[in-house]
C-alpha cells in the first residue's frame, strides 16, 4: 500500500482544493533523522464534496489536514485552492486565504479562549477582516510594529540579562548615593538618570535620542535613526531576515559596542569606577557572545542579530545624550518617558475603541450564526466557553468557522471527544451546514462508521501514504486494500451476534522515522509477498471510482 500516484485525482479544472505529492517531515534530533509524517499524499475535492480521511493515529491524517492549512507549510508538494498555489504564497498572502479555508479542531474546549465571552470569540474573525478591509488606523500599525520588535528583543536580549541588570542596578544606586554628593557621577558615561529609561524600555530610549538630538541641535541624522530605524525599517526587516543580514547586523552591533567600551572605559572615575565598567561589560558581553556564536552558525544570526543592532544603536543614543549636562539630561529622560506613556495609552485606547465598535457591528451576524448552530444567543452571548458542554462548545467552534462564509472547512476529528448521542447531533449539524452554505469538507476521523456517514469519498491513510480512495459505500462493502479490510474488521459492532473477527495484527504501527521499504503496510499485511518489500505500489483504479495502492488488491481482476 501505501503507495504514491495520482490516478485517483480528477480534472484540475473541476477541483476546488487539490493537494499533490504533499510531503511533511519533522526533523528529529541532531543526527539528521526525520519523522516521515506525510510522504507523497495527493488528494482533491470538487466543490460541495466531503472527503473523509481515515486511518490509525500516527498515519498522518491530521498532519495532512494541517499541511493543507499550511500550519506548518508542507516540506514539499503543491496545494491549490481555487487554482491558486498556496505553498509559494508569503505569510501575508497566505493569511488572506484564511476566510476561505477554515478549520474545526478535535477538542472544542481547548480550541476556544477561556477568558473571552462567546460574543467576542464568534465575532473575532469578522472584526479582524473588517479591520483588514477598511484599513487599520496607522497608529495600530505602529503599535504592532513596536510590539513585534520589543517582544523579540525582550525575549532574546533583555530577558536573559535581567538578573545581572538588577544586581548592577542595586550597585548603581548605592554608587550614586555615595558619590552624588561629590557631584562626580555626572561625569560618567552612564549617569543614574539613564537607569529608569533602561527600565521603561524601548520607545523611551528612542525618544531620548530624539530629544537629545534636539537639545544638542545635532540635526536630523539622530532623529531618523531614533524613529525610523526602530519602528519602521527594522520591524519590516525583522519579519524575514536572511542569515547574511543577521550576521551583518550582529557585526555592526558588536562594533558599536566595542567602540562604546573603548570610549567610556576611562570616563569612569573615582573609587567606584569598576561598577560603571562592569555595567558596560554586562551590556556588551551578550552582544559579543552572540556575534561569536553567529559566526559559527550563521543561520542562527537572523532576527536576533538585527535586534542586537537595534539595541546598539539605541545605546549609542544614550551615550550621546549622556554627554549633556545633568539637568537637561534629566529633563530629557522624564519628558521621554512621559511622552512615551501618554502616546502608548492613546494608541491602545484608540485600537480598543475601534475593536469594540466593530464587535458591536458584528453582533447581528453573531446572533444569526449561533441560532444556525442551535445555540440560544440571548442566554449564551456573555458566557465563557467552559460554561458549555462539549457538544455545545463544538457548536460554537462550528459557528466561528462559519461566520466568514468559508468555502472549505477542514474538520480534524470534530466528534472524537464527544459522546455518541452528542456525536450524532454534531454530525447532523455538519450535514445541515454543508447543505445550507454549500461547504466543501475535509473530514478527518479514526472512526470508520462516522467517516462513512459524512463522506462522499474516503481516503484510507497508513503511515503517511494513501492506501485506498473510493466512494464510502463501495469501500465499506468491498474494501480493496488489505489495510482497509483490517480497519473494517476491527470496528466493534453494536450487536452481540456479530463476533469481532479481527485479522490478527502482528505488531504496532512501524516507526515513521524508518518506514518500511516498498509498501509501508507490508510488515502487518497478511498478504505481503517479496515484491511488496522491493517495489512501492502505485495507485490504480481496480473498480469504477475505486483506487488502490496495492500489488495484490482484494477487488478487481487481480483479486483471487
Amino acid at each position, binding site marked *: 500500500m501505501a503507495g504514491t500516484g495520482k490516478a485517483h485525482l480528477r480534472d484540475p479544472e473541476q477541483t476546488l482544493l487539490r493537494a499533490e505529492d504533499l510531503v511533511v517531515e519533522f526533523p528529529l534530533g541532531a543526527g539528521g533523522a526525520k519523522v516521515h509524517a506525510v510522504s507523497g499524499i495527493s488528494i482533491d475535492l470538487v466543490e460541495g464534496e466531503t472527503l473523509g480521511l481515515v486511518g490509525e493515529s500516527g498515519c498522518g491524517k491530521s498532519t495532512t489536514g494541517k499541511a493543507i492549512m499550511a500550519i506548518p507549510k508542507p516540506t514539499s508538494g503543491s496545494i491549490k485552492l481555487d487554482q491558486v498555489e498556496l505553498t509559494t504564497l508569503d505569510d501575508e498572502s497566505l493569511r488572506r486565504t484564511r476566510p476561505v479555508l477554515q478549520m474545526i479542531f478535535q477538542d472544542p474546549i481547548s480550541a476556544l479562549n477561556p477568558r473571552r465571552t462567546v460574543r467576542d470569540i464568534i465575532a473575532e474573525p469578522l472584526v479582524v477582516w473588517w479591520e483588514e478591509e477598511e484599513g487599520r488606523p496607522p497608529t495600530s500599525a505602529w503599535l504592532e510594529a513596536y510590539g513585534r520588535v520589543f517582544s523579540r528583543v525582550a525575549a532574546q536580549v533583555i530577558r536573559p540579562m535581567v538578573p545581572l541588570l538588577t544586581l548592577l542596578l542595586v550597585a548603581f544606586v548605592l554608587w550614586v548615593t555615595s558619590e552624588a554628593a561629590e557631584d562626580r557621577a555626572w561625569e560618567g558615561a552612564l549617569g543614574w538618570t539613564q537607569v529608569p529609561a533602561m527600565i521603561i524600555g524601548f520607545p523611551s530610549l528612542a525618544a531620548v535620542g530624539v530629544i537629545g538630538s534636539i537639545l544638542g541641535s545635532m540635526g536630523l541624522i539622530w532623529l531618523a535613526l531614533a524613529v525610523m530605524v526602530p519602528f519602521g525599517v527594522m520591524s519590516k526587516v525583522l519579519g524575514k531576515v536572511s542569515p547574511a543580514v543577521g550576521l551583518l547586523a550582529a557585526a555592526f552591533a558588536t562594533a558599536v559596542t566595542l567602540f562604546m567600551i573603548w570610549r567610556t572605559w576611562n570616563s569612569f572615575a573615582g573609587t567606584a569606577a569598576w561598577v560603571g565598567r562592569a555595567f558596560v561589560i554586562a551590556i556588551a558581553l551578550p552582544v559579543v557572545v552572540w556575534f561569536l556564536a553567529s559566526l559559527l552558525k550563521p543561520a542562527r544570526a537572523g532576527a536576533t542579530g538585527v535586534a542586537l543592532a537595534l539595541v546598539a544603536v539605541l545605546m549609542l543614543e544614550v551615550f550621546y545624550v549622556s554627554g549633556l549636562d545633568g539637568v537637561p539630561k534629566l529633563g530629557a529622560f522624564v519628558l521621554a518617558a512621559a511622552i512615551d506613556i501618554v502616546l502608548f495609552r492613546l494608541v491602545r485606547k484608540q485600537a480598543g475603541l475601534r475593536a469594540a465598535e466593530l464587535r458591536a457591528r458584528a453582533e447581528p451576524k453573531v446572533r444569526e450564526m449561533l441560532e444556525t448552530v442551535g445555540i440560544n444567543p440571548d442566554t449564551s452571548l456573555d458566557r465563557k466557553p467552559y460554561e458549555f*458542554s462539549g457538544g455545545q462548545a463544538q457548536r460554537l467552534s462550528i459557528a466561528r468557522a462559519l461566520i466568514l462564509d468559508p468555502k472549505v472547512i477542514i474538520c480534524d476529528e470534530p466528534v472524537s471527544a464527544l459522546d455518541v448521542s452528542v456525536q450524532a447531533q454534531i454530525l447532523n449539524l455538519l450535514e445541515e451546514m454543508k447543505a445550507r452554505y454549500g461547504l466543501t469538507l475535509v473530514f478527518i476521523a479514526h472512526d470508520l462508521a462516522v467517516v462513512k456517514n459524512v463522506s462522499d469519498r474516503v481516503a484510507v491513510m497508513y503511515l503517511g501514504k494513501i492506501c485506498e480512495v473510493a466512494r464510502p459505500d463501495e469501500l465499506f462493502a468491498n474494501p480493496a486494500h488489505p489495510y482497509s479490510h483490517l480497519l473494517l474488521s476491527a470496528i466493534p459492532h453494536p450487536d452481540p451476534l456479530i463476533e469481532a473477527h479481527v485479522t490478527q495484527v502482528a*505488531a504496532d504501527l512501524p516507526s515513521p522515522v524508518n518506514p518500511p521499504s516498498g509498501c509501508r503496510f507490508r510488515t502487518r499485511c497478511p498478504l505481503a509477498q517479496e515484491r511488496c518489500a522491493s517495489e512501492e505500489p502505485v495507485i490504480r483504479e481496480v473498480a469504477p471510482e475505486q483506487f488502490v495502492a496495492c500489488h495484490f488488491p482484494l477487488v478487481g481482476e487481480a483479486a483471487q
Partner: protein
Amino acid sequence: MSYPNSDGPVDTVADTVDDHAPVLVVKNLTTTFATPRGPLTAVDDVSFTLRRGTALGIVGESGSGKSVTARSVMRLLPKSNVTTTGEVSINGIDMMALGPKELRAMWGPEVAMVFQDPLGSLNPVMRIGDQVAEGLRIHHNVSRKEARAAALQLLRQVGIPSPQTRLDEYPHQLSGGMRQRVVIAIALSCGPKLLIADEPTTALDVTVQAQILDLLSDQQTERHMPLVLITHDLGVVAGRTQEVIVMYAGRIMERARTPVLFRDMKMPYTEALFRSIPKVEYPSHTRLAIIPGRPPTMVEPIRGCRFAPRCRYAQDRCLEEEPELTPAVDRDHVYRCFYPVGTPEGEQALEINRSNGRLTPEGELIGVS
C-alpha cells in the same frame, strides 16, 4: 502468571463449586457530591450483583454516573465533599466498613482497576518493570528479583513484544496501545478477584481497541475473573460482556443479559443510544437519530422519569411519576419504563405523541434543544 497465587489461572475444584456465589454485591448505592449549587446525586440507588467469570458492561452518556459507580465500589472517591451510602461487598468483604489501611490491602489482590488514560495512570519517571512489580512487592512481599521475573511474565501475558527490553523502559517510550497493556498488566499483577475497566479503550484507535478488548476478554476467561467494563460505546459491550447495565442520570435504566438487551431492548433510552450510533451498514449520509437536549444536572430533585424530557415515548404520566425497575419476560431483564419499546403500550405512546405534534412524521422529537 508465574507468581504462585491461589487465584491464578489454575483453579481449584473448590473455586468452581461456588461459581454462582456473587463476587460483587452492590445494594442501594448512592453517591452525593457537595457542590456550591447544592448536593449533586451522581449515583442514585444503584443495586446489582456480579458472579464469577462473567463480564458486566455499564453503558451510558457522560455524566450518567457510570464512572462514579465504579469509583464508589472501589472506594476511590475522596472523603471530603462526597457521601456514599448503601452496601458494597466484594467476595463477602464489606467495602464500606474498611479503613484506609484495609482498603490498600484490597486494592490489587481483591479488586483492581484499569483507567481510561494510560499515560495518566502510569508514573512517567518510573521504569515499566518497577511499576508492574510494585503491587507484587507490596502485597506479596516478594524479593526484587522474583518480582522482576513475575513482571516479565505479566508483560508477556498481556502481549507486549520483547518484554525483556520493555522492563527497563519508561512509559513515554511506548505507544498508546502498549501503555494500556502495561496498565492492564499492573492491574492483573496481584491476581485480582475482580477487575474494573473504566473506558479502557476510549483513547485508542479501532485496531488497538480490538486488541485491548480481546486481551481483557482472554484474561477474564483464563483467570475466571469477573470484569466490569464501563464504556459509552454500545459496540464495545456487545461482543464482550454477558450482562449490560444501562445508566442514565445516576439510575439504572435497564439491565439484561447482553443478547437479550440488543435483541429486545425495552427502555426508550437504550433504544435512543443505539439509534444514535452511526453504523457501518447504513449507506453514507444517513441522517442519524439524535437524543435531543442534555442529561439533567441532578442537583435539583427530579420529578417523574429522568429521561422523560428527551424521550420519544414520554406521556404526561412519565413527567409525574418515576417508574420502578420492572422485570421483563426474560430472566434477569429489568427496565424502568411505563411505555416500553416494542410493546403495545409503547407503540400507542408513540402514536399519541405523533398525533399531538411532539414527534415529526419520521418519529423524531421536536422542540427540545
